[in-house]
């Protein structure tokens, strides 16, 4: 199967079609909705499962110096990409510095669901990403926020990042669960996996379908509400920036000599934009920034772009660059 076939197979997978169903239902104003508690339950399941699987595969394969490099690269990418995003936004759109900085934070950070979907695609293509890539995902959540706040401070609008906010970001529920499950998987290894794989592995893709159905519903609702906000410039940014981020991720992977699977995931992390952790941090730290802009862009534009087109492109690129 070549890369184009894989990309198409991804497009017609239950997971992507479930997302599409959600978007269509929301745009058609169906009253289909998933209760908040269920959506949170699904995300807790997914984070636990991803973290745990990553940890188990580290227990199997061991760690190498590459992990250290990848963690550092992740930190740098997350901190640096907001500057690129900020510059692009100021050039391509009419956003105020404040709104531009808020959006930029999202693009430095990552979307764990995009990461999961990317892992599936990589594995379908026979690639074998390193388990510790989830740790890289975890360290990439927060640094982008700092960069964004620095950008705002520089544009004259000083504000202090209180210790509380800092703790909230670093210890936010998703990170703690992902990292905690990673360590549990690492400690218990194959033994632990044998006990809970029927819960962690077997139903995973199905749960992901329902979760993406929900994300589709939320994204569709957001798009309906925010019609007026999406200018051509913002739309263009929403599909350009992921390509920029993916390129940066691939470059880092190339320098570190990661295997093609991990290289693809590095691209995915660079390309994806946060829509859970960073929006919450922005509401606290930059309450005047307009949340419709950053939520619509990251969840309504970049997330579907990555899912449907991006993943195929990043896979092809990783193949080319990292060989395999």
């Amino acid at each position, binding site marked *: 199967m070549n890369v184009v076939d894989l990309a198409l197979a991804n497009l017609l997978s239950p997971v992507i079609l479930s997302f599409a169903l959600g978007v269509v239902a929301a745009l058609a104003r169906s009253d289909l909705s998933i209760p908040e508690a269920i959506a949170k339950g699904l995300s807790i399941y997914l984070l636990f499962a991803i973290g745990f699987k990553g940890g188990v595969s580290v227990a199997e394969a061991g760690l190498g110096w590459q992990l250290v490099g990848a963690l550092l690269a992740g930190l740098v990418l997350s901190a640096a990409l907001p500057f690129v995003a900020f510059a692009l936004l100021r050039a391509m759109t009419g956003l105020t510095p404040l709104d531009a900085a808020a959006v930029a934070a999202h693009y430095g950070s990552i979307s764990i669901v995009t990461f999961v979907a990317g892992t599936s695609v990589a594995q379908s293509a026979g690639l074998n990403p390193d388990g510790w890539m989830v740790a890289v995902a975890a360290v990439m959540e927060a640094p982008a926020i700092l960069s964004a706040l620095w950008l705002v401070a520089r544009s004259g609008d000083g504000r202090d990042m209180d210790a509380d906010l800092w703790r909230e970001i670093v210890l936010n529920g998703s990170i703690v669960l992902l990292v905690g499950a990673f360590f549990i998987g690492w400690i218990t290894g194959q033994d632990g996996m044998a006990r809970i794989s029927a819960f962690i592995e077997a139903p995973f893709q199905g749960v992901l379908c329902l979760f993406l159905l929900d994300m589709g*519903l939320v994204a569709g609702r957001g798009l309906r509400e925010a019609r007026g906000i999406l200018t051509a410039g913002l739309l263009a940014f929403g599909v350009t920036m992921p390509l920029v981020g993916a390129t940066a991720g691939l470059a880092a992977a190339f320098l570190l000599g990661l295997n093609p699977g991990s290289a693809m995931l590095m691209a995915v992390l660079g390309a994806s934009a946060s*829509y859970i952790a960073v929006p919450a941090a922005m509401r606290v730290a930059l309450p005047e920034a307009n949340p*419709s802009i950053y939520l619509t862009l990251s969840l309504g534009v970049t997330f579907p772009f990555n899912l449907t087109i991006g993943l195929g492109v990043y896979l092809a690129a990783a193949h080319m660059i990292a060989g395999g």
Partner: protein
Amino acid sequence: MDTHPAKRVEIIIEAIMERRLSEALRKVDVTGYTILPVQGGSGRSGTWSRAGQVGRAQGMLAFVCIVRAERLDTLLDAAFAVVKPHIGVVSITDCEVLRAERF
């Protein structure tokens, strides 16, 4: 039944500000309040609903806080410092309470 005048303050505030508002109230010794979940709403920043949300960025809460009249200003000052840069609504109603010694 013996009732006593008091003030009922209702603060509709972003969910992410919950801990900060609680702490601000505690600092001025307002330790009695009840938090009601909010399911959706509409305002100048648009319409929203909690359905299907995973993140905490969207979503509000309603703090209901009953205090004696003489504590009202302290409460409002503390609450307003937290609410000010954020979206949200503060309203105050006269009420009567039982067991006045609790407030």
